[in-house]
């Protein structure tokens, strides 16, 4: 049966857009203006296609949908295979939503090499979408690595003063990971003779080999998450990246690690995943507490939010590796919520950065006086980040902790302290930036958010509340795919799942 290749269309449309922008000719000003418009239109159409795709997506099925399969390197049994399930579909939507927002956020603030900038974003979108829909390990690897090229350029070319250092750090960390990931993929291919991800999900790789492969995957994914102690590239990358770069970095790129774990490590290497749970829990708990404390003393807004991202990602890895229904769904939900909230927080920083060209917290203060709308918007995302119930931030963290409690009370207990620390550093940030007397004269002249900026924030605010008040729309479609991963994990490790309903007798545990 030949189906319409909607995933490929969606994936490569931005690339086509990039090519079109490349062809733009004329004086610098008109090229820049046209590049912006083309990028916005293309990304909006891509978003539309992704919504159309989601409308046809059946959330009750655990398997992959809209599958496209063509031989790529026939001699090696490597295919161009695309498809989405309940796990990847939301990351695709997140990417297609955030790209037009990034284009809009860069509308006025990027003034040099606008054409190349927009091209970079279009290429970035293609690689992200390809990565999330690839169902062949080699194809996945190509996209996974390719994502980083435009990201490099965005930081390295359009970044701040220390972009050299930041891009270099980013490079060093990922280099190690990508080599090991490649070797692991090679070894899997050698062992099983296939790189087909759905097929590998039911393969049986010997447990000892699984452990080595797991560590190789971990080397790559842990950097992306980022997990402690390979996280130090993130604060620098965020600080140096332009606003839109930070948005896409926090919003989508940090999810690549979690997605990798959930898509590859756990289903393909279930035994090793189980074996390394204590390691992952340990690193995650350290990440939550360590980075929360570090966030408390930051003097740079972007650094603070970057460190808070690491803490939130700690919840993700705890949730994913706890491998109970609530925890994994919670981990997924934290990723989606963080994708929206941290992106919005970086946009909030961008708003004031555009006006005062500094990220130093001490240079602000008293913004609420002249920027009440901004203060309210910032407040909403700050609270969502803190995990207040009825915002998206709560649902995910709550489910992670509820689910992880069954597996390790100590992990849950320690991770939950992050909730207290999270409130402390975010409120402290908010107080220093928004509240208080105005002490700097230039702050007094700052204008409140304009219509373009409000247009950027409104959909994000709506999502924060939608996800917080009626999360079922998001959890229900991902549940079957997650259940499949959990079932495989449990059967590979001979875990008898907790009685899902009814009351267990106390003697039973």
């Amino acid at each position, binding site marked *: 049966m030949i189906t319409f290749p909607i995933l490929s269309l969606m994936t490569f449309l931005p690339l086509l857009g990039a090519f079109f922008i490349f062809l733009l000719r004329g004086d610098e000003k008109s090229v820049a203006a046209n590049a912006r418009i083309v990028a916005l239109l293309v990304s909006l159409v891509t978003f539309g296609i992704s919504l159309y795709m989601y409308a046809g997506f059946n959330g009750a099925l655990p398997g992959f949908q809209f599958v496209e399969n063509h031989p790529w390197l026939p001699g090696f049994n490597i295919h161009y295979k695309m498809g989405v399930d309940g796990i990847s579909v939301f990351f695709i939507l997140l990417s297609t939503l955030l790209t037009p927002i990034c284009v809009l956020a860069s509308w006025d603030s990027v003034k040099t090499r606008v054409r190349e900038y927009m091209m970079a974003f279009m290429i970035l979108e293609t690689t992200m979408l390809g990565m999330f829909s690839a169902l062949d390990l080699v194809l996945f690897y190509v996209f996974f*690595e390719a994502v980083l090229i435009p990201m*490099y*350029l965005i930081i*390295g*070319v359009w970044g701040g003063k220390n972009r050299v250092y930041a891009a*270099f*750090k980013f*490079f*060093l960390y990922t280099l190690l990971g*990508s*080599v090991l990931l*490649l*070797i692991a993929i090679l070894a899997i291919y050698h062992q099983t003779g296939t790189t087909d991800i759905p097929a590998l999900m039911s393969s049986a790789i010997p447990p000892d080999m699984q452990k080595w492969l797991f560590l190789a995957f971990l080397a790559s994914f842990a950097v992306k998450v980022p997990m402690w*102690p390979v996280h*130090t*590239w993130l*604060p620098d990358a965020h600080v140096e990246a332009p606003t839109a770069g930070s948005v896409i970095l926090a919003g989508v790129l940090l999810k690549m690690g979690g997605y990798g774990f959930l898509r590859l490590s756990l289903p393909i290497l279930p035994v090793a995943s189980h074996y390394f749970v204590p390691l992952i829990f340990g690193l995650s708990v350290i990440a939550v507490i360590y980075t929360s*404390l*570090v966030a*408390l*003393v930051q003097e740079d807004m972007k650094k603070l939010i970057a460190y808070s991202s690491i803490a939130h990602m700690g919840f993700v890895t705890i949730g994913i590796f706890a491998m*109970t229904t*609530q925890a994994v769904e*919670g981990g997924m939900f934290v990723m989606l919520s963080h994708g929206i909230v941290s992106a919005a927080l970086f946009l909030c920083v961008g708003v004031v950065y555009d006006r005062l060209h500094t990220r130093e917290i001490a240079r602000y203060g008293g913004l*609420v*006086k002249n920027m009440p709308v901004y203060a309210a918007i910032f407040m909403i995302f700050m*609270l969502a980040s803190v995990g*207040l*119930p*009825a915002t998206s931030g*709560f*649902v995910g963290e*709550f*489910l992670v*902790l*509820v*689910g992880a*409690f069954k597996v390790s*009370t*100590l992990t*849950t*207990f320690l991770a*939950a302290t992050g*909730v*207290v620390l999270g409130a*402390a550093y975010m*409120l*402290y940030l908010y*107080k220093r930036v928004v*509240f*208080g007397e105005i002490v700097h004269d230039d702050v007094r002249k700052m204008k409140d958010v304009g219509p373009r900026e409000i247009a950027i924030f409104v959909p994000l605010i709506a999502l924060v509340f939608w996800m917080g*008040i*009626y*999360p*079922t729309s998001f959890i*229900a479609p991902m*549940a079957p795919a997650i259940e499949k991963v959990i079932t495989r994990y449990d059967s590979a490790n001979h875990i008898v799942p907790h009685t899902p*309903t009814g*009351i267990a007798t*106390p003697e039973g545990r």
Partner: protein
Amino acid sequence: MHLQLETVAVFAPLLGGAIAGLFGKKIGDKAANFVTCTLMLASAGSAIALFYDILLKHDPRTVQLFTWISSGALNVSWALRFDQLATVMVAVVTVVSTCVHFYSIGYMAHDKARARFTAYLSLFTFAMLMLVTADNLVQLFFGWEGVGLMSYLLIGFWNEKESANSAAIKAFVMNRIGDFGLALGLMATFFLFHSLDFKDIFAHAAEMQNATIMFLGHGFGALNLICALLFVGAMGKSAQLGLHTWLPDAMEGPTPVSALIHAATMVTAGVFMVARMSPLYEYAVDVRMFITIMGGLTAFIAATIAITQFDIKRVIAYSTMSQLGYMFFALGVSAYSAAIFHLFTHAFFKALLFLGSGSVIHAMGGEQDMRKMGGLYKKIPHTYVMMWIGSLALAGIPLFAGYYSKDMILEADFARMGHVAHFAWVLGVAAAFLTAFYSWRLIFMTFHGKPRADKHTMDHVHESPPVMLVPLYVLATGATFGGWAFRKFFVGRMRFKFWGKSLFVLKGDNVISMAEHIPSWAGHAPAVVGVTGILVAFWLYMKATKVPGKIVKAFKPVHSLLFNKWYFDEIYHALGVVPAFVVGRILWKTGDGKIIDGLGPDGVARVVAKGSRETSKVETGYVYHYAFAMLLGVVAFITAYIFCVQR
């Protein structure tokens, strides 16, 4: 569409808050006040109708709204559970809140952000209503955090003031520490019951009496563990000793906020929660003992602090903490109905006292220090009378509301056998003496004696407008007749029908019934010490006015301890706040900077990047680097592949 009373009672304040908050600038302060007050009236009206329906006609019900979180076995919905307990709370919250809304029109008349203020008040009320009408623990947690948030916003309402901002953060973070316990309690509950719905939990509580949970490597009695963790949450929200330091600082907010949040509603959330969870607490005997002790200590220690404070609002704040202590030790001895009765009467007289003190502050042009007051009773006679009524009720003087409820608590406590209960009883009676003492110390220092304010201030002292006084009259009515009128329902002969199944007490253990048989000296003790307290205050602050100073001098260390609130703030600052920042800085500079970066990327960078940095342009340099990396990858790929194939 048919509008239900339940929905109106809970969602009218949300609507009002949303309108005033989002469109306050457009419609203006007056319209915002009008909208919120009207909707609060609608809410309170519905609540009173429901009170009649549910409590007097015994017809509890639950309104299901829609699914909230559904993940595997975890299913919780947004719902409005109107059983007897919830209905009492809804009535108290909405009535007091309506009074506060109206009062604020006058009190905040000169403020720049009236629409925002009234929006916050309404949203706060909504959060509290969601808390008390929850039919599962997660919605309760929503309300719980919601009131925490709104109190953060209201305490920090005057957000250009540094002290207000700090107090707001302190309140939120302190509450979060409590919420941390509550959240763990939720998790343990789900672990044990596979559900967070009250009906499932309560139905299976008895079966779980002997269950154990492994927690942090130790086996605990499951219900004791859950109840202890939940109680940590209650300690935070209800300002019990240890997690109380945010409450007095919360007085940074405008006075109506103090009346609403820190007297009548938010701080009672902990008391409500324990009563709500009574089917679990009944089996958690050890935890209830702990609650009794904590309640007794809180009641006493807060009262000792109150007698030394000079800020009129702080005195009342500590008195709130002390009264919450009473409620908790009532809960500890299974006198749930007495605790809720005291919550009910306390809401009226404490709101009255706070709003009355607000009226004093308003008259004094913002002055809160009692040392700068005195001789006000002729100038603001209405307020003066209101403060008397509030104080009489607070001190538990017969016929006033507080008498019936406080007496009931102490009697129930006395009736309960055992050292713990009697320990709490002694502390409670001592606190009753101190309560009467500091209440009249406040009255005498504020209203009597020679004016200590300057002439300019005294000339401007004026009685508050009717919009502020009428709410005081309403509350005063409650503070006067609330105890007498409702006694038979809450703790009297009608109590079983009144409460229905909403409060659970183990069979054959009804401490309220036992309280009728205690010796008469024990029954009269609270009222006697109360009157004594008033007389002592009269002697010290009206007659022998030099004596208090001498006492302070003679007992300098004790006074310093009390005046400085037992140094809780200083200890927490030194042990909690300072280390967090120091450790954070060390982890950042040394951990991230020197160790991870120093050994990792920076170390490598020093070696690799030496040459390339100068020679190549930034951009091309990095594309080059990346290409190099890819090349390395490909080389490794090919090498390994050849190696594998050859094997």
